[in-house]
């Protein structure tokens, strides 16, 4: 039996961290949490990850900065990132206008559609 896929959930809202951890945990994924970009980077460095769900508007290091660091570092750039945010459309446009940074592997708008995020996670972790 293969080990569970490991997913990092990044959001400054504890309730959303709890929600996504429980939802993904119920599907057999192992989850780790981070409350901002800085903590997220520590978790990335700490262990192997199969996927990251990322909020954009956070105190301290923002999701955009964390995303750029991830996608411009050869060590982490292949970890798929799903942007989960209330401003994902704006973020999509922003990222599209920056050609040197690749687009995230997935976008999910808040409020989250459970089926949609689970399908996306499943597809990106296969």
């Amino acid at each position, binding site marked *: 039996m293969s080990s569970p896929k490991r997913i990092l959930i990044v959001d*400054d*809202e*504890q*309730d*959303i961290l*709890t*929600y*996504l951890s*429980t*939802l993904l945990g*119920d599907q057999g994924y192992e989850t780790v949490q981070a*409350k*901002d970009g800085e*903590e997220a980077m520590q978790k990335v460095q700490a262990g192997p990850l199969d996927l990251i769900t990322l909020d954009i*508007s*956070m*105190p301290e290091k923002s999701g955009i900065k964390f995303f750029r660091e991830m996608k411009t570092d050869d060590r982490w750039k292949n970890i798929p990132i799903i942007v989960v945010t*209330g*401003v994902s459309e704006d973020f999509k446009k922003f990222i599209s206008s920056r050609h040197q940074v690749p687009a995230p592997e997935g976008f999910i*708008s*808040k*409020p*989250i559609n*459970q089926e949609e995020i689970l399908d996306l996670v499943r597809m990106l972790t296969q």
Partner: protein
Amino acid sequence: MIDNPYKNYFEMMPAYLTILDRDLRIVEANRRFCRDFGDFKGRYCFQIYQQRSERCEHCPAELTFRDGKRHGNEEKFINQLGNEISLVVYTTPITNEAGEITHVMKMATDITEVILLQSQMRERRERYRKLFEEVPCYISIQDSDLRIVDANRRIREDFGALPGEKCHQTYMHQAEACVPCIVKQTFGDGQVHQSEKVMTSQKGEQVNLLVYTAPVHNAEGQINYVIEMSTNITEIRQLQSQLTSLGLIISSISHGIKGLLTSLDGGVYLVNTGLAKNDRQRFEQGWKMVERNITRVRRMVLDLLYYAKDRAPELESIPARAVADEVCEVVRVKAAEMGISFGCEVDRNIGDIDADLKAIRSLLINLVENAMDACRVDTKKENHVVRIKLRGYPEYIEYEVEDNGIGMDQEIRERAFSLFFSSKRGNGTGLGLFISNKIAQAHGGEIKIESELNKGTRMILKLPRKPPTSGTEAPNV
């Protein structure tokens, strides 16, 4: 007495010419005099010019007889038509062969029109001055060194502008000229220029001004001054800002609601799956999420209502400590759930204040919730504390809400009371502190912020025991 050819000049002179003897009797007069004053024979100067029976008090002819020198003055006379005319009078001695003064020649020039023109010019100048002073905008005249040569009343009163001061020192409180400077531009090209400036009034208020400059030419067509005229557009800018803010609030609320719905979804998910799995711990965790986020929805809706409608505070005499006690009771449970130590230090003998109970309670709850939020998002400390303190002074009281949460940097401190500004990213509407500040002001009070990033915040609400009666509008509560 006057021989040809001088007799002819005497007659043709465009002035009143008379020859007087020592008794001031007119012995000769020219044509113009006869035309306007009639027959002079045997009559005295003062009889004809002044229609007096006695000599004038200050008679230049008499002085000339006395000292042999020329004299002059300005007088009003009545001509034979009964019209008052203004004359400039000069007297000069006429001597005989022995050098004795036998007569005096009196020359009077009609300056009635000149006087009239001078008077009209004075009136016109006064009218323009009044217009300059009273016009409802700021006007100053500046020279090429940007020194104020003249300034109207409004600009003197609001900005303290004085002749001799430099424009940028007075309006902008800066040592150097503005870049670009439209006064300099007008001096350079003679054209009208326009710009918008934010200037600081004598009272320290920021005033948005729409500024125009125009050249003032001298007789040779050179620009010797530039006139600067400014209109106060602060209210228009504030209105524009509010309209822009309406767009911002929709965006801000939309973002906030998305976050709230996601958290509510999460709570419902945990409740449902907790029930399905018979997992009580998960159920309770989910239920707390639901409760917490319903509270956030309520807060957001109330904030919006506060913002949407203003009304004067309903003042009543209330025990100051009762408000603090009530808020402490509500908050204590919530703080315990969030793992935050909570303290309430209230002076029991604080007395009463005149205040709108509901408004002050809402204000305090808002401050305390902000404090708890600041602790909740602070990941750098293990133990968090929120304290409410109440202190009484003879004229006022102080509520203090202190936390050791995430704190604020200078930018957040300065913008904390701005409408729709939130440091909570998507989780705040930017209304809470704006409304709290409005409530404090409506009571004649204020909120002070002492905060340091990563260390914590102290919010001090100072309220007078008796608010001024002519208070501003307070938010609906």
